[in-house]
């Protein structure tokens, strides 16, 4: 066989070459470090095979942060490329690959893993459970997501990068117009990650519905748990649509089918329909948990109960229903006719109403409260105006005819960054600062946190505000460069400077994690912020493996707050018994690897071998069926010892 290395390893450009070298060096460094400090066993036993939802959550978040850095570097390259007219830093092809990677990675491998991670950490604690319903499946979900992320991320060096945008529209993404294997990575990796998402959805839906502590009715659940439940419901409805679309796309590309082709009766518009039938709900899959986080943070730091809890829950439910009825607004310009466009304008603008309700609820939660400006609250506060900008511009875009002027311009790009960054990422940062001490036993440094906050906020607005105006001035998205006559240059430059400031902010955030890990004061109070309301603040800090020594009996909404007010004790030592825990398992890691191998063979179009390799994950499942492992017990004595560590807190009882 005639092997051409320059087709397999894409390192002809200097940027690629040095990235490649950098990756190799850091991999060797990592392996050497782990070997030198003898940490392989620790990594494998404590983390990679752990079925503890908290550890799975932290692994998800770690993956998300690594991907944030990767996607962020993509963003910096794009912004640098467009900072001056006719720049030649990136070629058109390279730019196309970079923005495709940026979008895909940020949605699938940054936003979703981070949200899943937070769900893993918080949901069991908020509902008074010791773990999720299916711990091993949970770990499998992580491994599948991680192997999909790795598969997608090697594309740019091995075989060619996807270059049809994160929406990967047919017919452009088909073999008729992009014959190389680059876009195969998209269809395969995203399909694999879809299994992971589905596992999370099923797992958390069952966990929330079946494993709530006694007494916690649905309308006593904390807001974040509610939003997670609804998110899981949307995922279960929306993801199968996407899976089928990706499967059809894969059949087109790898097996020569004609679902979406130009030739032989394919219907490329069908891809856009199926894609957005999933992708619009997807927006809510990441933003609803963000709403939940903001609700928790605002209530805690205002020292008040969440205002209008019931209307908030109904707003989330209504949003979830409408999220499935608005997909056409992503292509009003397809010429579907005024009647269809009118209907979808109505459904789209209708979403503004429940979203408005949520905003007002947060505002009125703060009213008459006592607002403390801790790090999490700063992010929650900044969330409100930025998300407001995202929301009102969303209304503008939702008006179908007006959209004919905004569609595919930078106005649109600015809008969805105000919702996805100003919404999701802000909420995620709020969540990090808020729940960090609960799991690690120390807060993130306040001063560095302030720097992170202000740099990120200033940078963010500087990056995306100008893009609204560029869009209104006719700047289309995804252009790798522009001529000087357009007059776009100053605003593009401003936007680039903003991106640099964001990068500085994120760097300080990473520094903060390292610094605080080494230097910050350790804490053991259960109620880290002093005004916690929900059950996660009732367990010891850092959270022990078993979460709750005794499963609490819930009497009220905001049970922990209720107990503090009524002086009811947190744990009755007499009730502590041996606690049953799930065992570690190597199978999820194996199945993840199997999916990676199989996916890789599909990408490289070894059809027969690829189909045969599907036996690998099934083998893992078969082995699983013959494993009779009933888990292990943590003895009651050990539990009591852990629980006694912070007796000082019993002062709450006196109140």
């Amino acid at each position, binding site marked *: 066989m005639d092997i051409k290395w320059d087709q397999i390893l894409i390192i002809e450009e200097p940027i690629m070459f040095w990235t490649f070298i950098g990756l190799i060096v850091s991999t060797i460094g990592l392996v050497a470090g782990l070997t030198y400090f003898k940490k392989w066993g620790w990594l494998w036993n404590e983390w990679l095979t752990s079925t503890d939802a908290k550890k799975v959550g932290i692994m998800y978040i770690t993956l998300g942060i690594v991907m944030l850095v990767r996607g962020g570097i993509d963003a910096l390259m794009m912004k640098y490329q467009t900072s001056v007219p006719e720049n030649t830093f990136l070629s058109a092809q390279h730019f196309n690959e970079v923005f495709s990677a940026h979008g895909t990675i940020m949605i699938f491998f940054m936003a979703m893993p981070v949200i899943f991670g937070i769900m893993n950490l918080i949901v069991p604690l908020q509902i008074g459970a010791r773990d999720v319903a299916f711990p091993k499946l949970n770990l499998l979900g992580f491994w599948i997501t991680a192997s999909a992320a790795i598969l997608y991320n090697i594309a740019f060096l091995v075989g060619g990068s996807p270059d049809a945008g994160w929406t990967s529209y047919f017919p452009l993404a088909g073999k008729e117009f992009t*014959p190389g*294997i680059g876009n195969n990575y998209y269809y395969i990796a995203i399909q694999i990650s879809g299994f992971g998402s589905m596992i999370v959805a099923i797992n958390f839906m069952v966990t929330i519905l079946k494993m709530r502590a006694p007494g916690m009715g649905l309308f006593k659940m904390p807001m974040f748990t509610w939003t997670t439940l609804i998110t899981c419901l949307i995922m279960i409805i929306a993801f199968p649509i996407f899976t089928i679309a990706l499967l059809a796309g894969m059949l087109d590309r790898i097996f020569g089918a004609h679902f979406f082709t130009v030739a032989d009766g394919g219907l490329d518009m069908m891809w856009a329909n199926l894609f957005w039938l999933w992708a619009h709900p997807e927006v809510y899959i990441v933003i609803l948990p963000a709403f939940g986080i903001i609700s928790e943070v605002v209530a805690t730091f205002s020292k008040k109960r969440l205002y209008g809890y019931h209307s908030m829950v109904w707003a989330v439910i209504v949003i979830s229903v409408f999220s499935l009825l608005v997909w056409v607004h992503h292509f009003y310009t397809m010429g579907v006719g005024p009647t269809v466009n009118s209907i979808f304008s109505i459904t789209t603008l209708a979403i503004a109403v429940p979203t408005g309700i949520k905003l007002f609820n947060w505002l009125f939660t703060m009213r008459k409260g*006592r607002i403390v400006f801790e790090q999490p609250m700063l992010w929650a506060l900044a969330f409100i105006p930025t998300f407001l900008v995202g929301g009102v511009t969303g209304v503008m875009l939702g*008006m179908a005819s*007006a959209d004919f002027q905004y569609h595919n311009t930078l106005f649109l790009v600015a809008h969805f960054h105000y919702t996805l960054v100003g919404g999701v990422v802000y909420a995620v940062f709020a969540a990090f600062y808020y729940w960090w001490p609960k799991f690690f036993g120390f807060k993130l440094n306040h001063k560095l946190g302030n720097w992170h906050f202000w740099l990120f906020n200033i940078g963010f607005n500087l990056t995306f505000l100008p893009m609204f105006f560029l869009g209104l001035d*006719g700047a289309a998205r995804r252009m790798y460069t522009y001529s000087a006559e357009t007059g776009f240059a100053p605003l593009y430059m401003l936007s680039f400077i903003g991106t640099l400031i964001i990068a500085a902010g994120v760097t300080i955030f990473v520094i903060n994690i390292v610094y605080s890990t080494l230097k910050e004061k350790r804490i053991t109070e259960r109620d880290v912020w002093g005004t916690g309301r929900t059950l996660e603040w009732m367990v010891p800090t850092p959270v022990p493996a078993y979460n709750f020594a005794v499963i609490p009996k819930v009497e009220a909404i905001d049970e922990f707050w209720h107990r503090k007010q009524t002086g009811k004790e947190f744990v009755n030592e007499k009730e502590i018994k041996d606690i049953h825990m799930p065992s570690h398992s190597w199978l999820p890691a194996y199945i993840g690897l199997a999916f990676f191998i199989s996916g890789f063979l599909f990408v490289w179009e070894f059809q027969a071998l690829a189909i045969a390799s599907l036996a690998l994950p099934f083998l893992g499942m078969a082995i699983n069926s013959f494993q009779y492992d009933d888990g292990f017990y943590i003895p009651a004595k050990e539990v009591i010892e852990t629980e006694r560590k912070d007796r000082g807190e019993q002062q709450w009882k006196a109140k």
Partner: protein
Amino acid sequence: MRKLKGLILSVSLLMALFVLSGCELIIFDSAGPQAQILTDLINWSLVWIGIIFVVVLALFITFVWKYRARPDNKDYMPPQEEGNKVIEIIWTLIPIIIVVILLVPTVKSLYALEEVPAEYADEEPLVIHVTSADWKWIFSYPEENIETINYVTIPTNRPVIFKLTSAGTMQSFWIPQLAGQKYTMANMETELPIVAEREGEFFGRNTSFNGEGYREMEFSVEAVSQEDFEKWVAEVHEYADELTEEEYYEKLQPSHLGRETYVGTHLQWINHADHGGNANEKILNPEAYRGHGYPGKIFHDPENAGQQHDGGDHSGH
């Protein structure tokens, strides 16, 4: 806290600055009734979202400032309110009313944009077929028997109906000063009626990403008086070359072209918009899109292609 206020202030100042310079933004500089409908609608929406923005921001700043934690309210225990039905109903109803206020003109305009404006309804419209290909715009005048590439000459104050289709990838046809966007799709035809009321050269482009040459997919609209238009038609017939079928298929290959003008149209040879048929199959040429990386399998049978390719000028920039 002061920092937060300062930030909000500077952001709103920055915004105001942009808005003040906004009169020059291209979508507010309409040159015809269709674009004017959109400009009016956008301005209408800006008024209402401006109101929402100011009200919510005012509430936000007031609450954050007024209820901030101070050393002297350390022991203050906030009321644990559940909510208030009346207030919650009010803030549900007001957004509903605003949404209706925005939707009524939106729906009206959607129907209006599909038709030739009423005041021009009596005039004989000029029909122009638009074909987008990688990476150029082809305009065909069936009546005048003319084909142009990357520019289109139209008469002012006369309705023009663009019939849009594509010879390959999906693209979006946009002349911001004359009309909003509409997609061009292979095996499909969409229609976009416009009227230019001002003479001049207007900028047009594709906004739907379609590969390596996407950025260069621009064209210009030359709006001239009816007499000048007729003069232009006559000139073309006098000086321009005849378009041949072979030449036309060559043009469809992925490449960047300048402005070109021909006598004759491609409509006699191929109907890219043929919905039921497979007309576009013969012009597809995946080999011309080869880039770096590992070459995948191609299932499209090259023997069916009408054009035996020489690769085209796909790397030419």
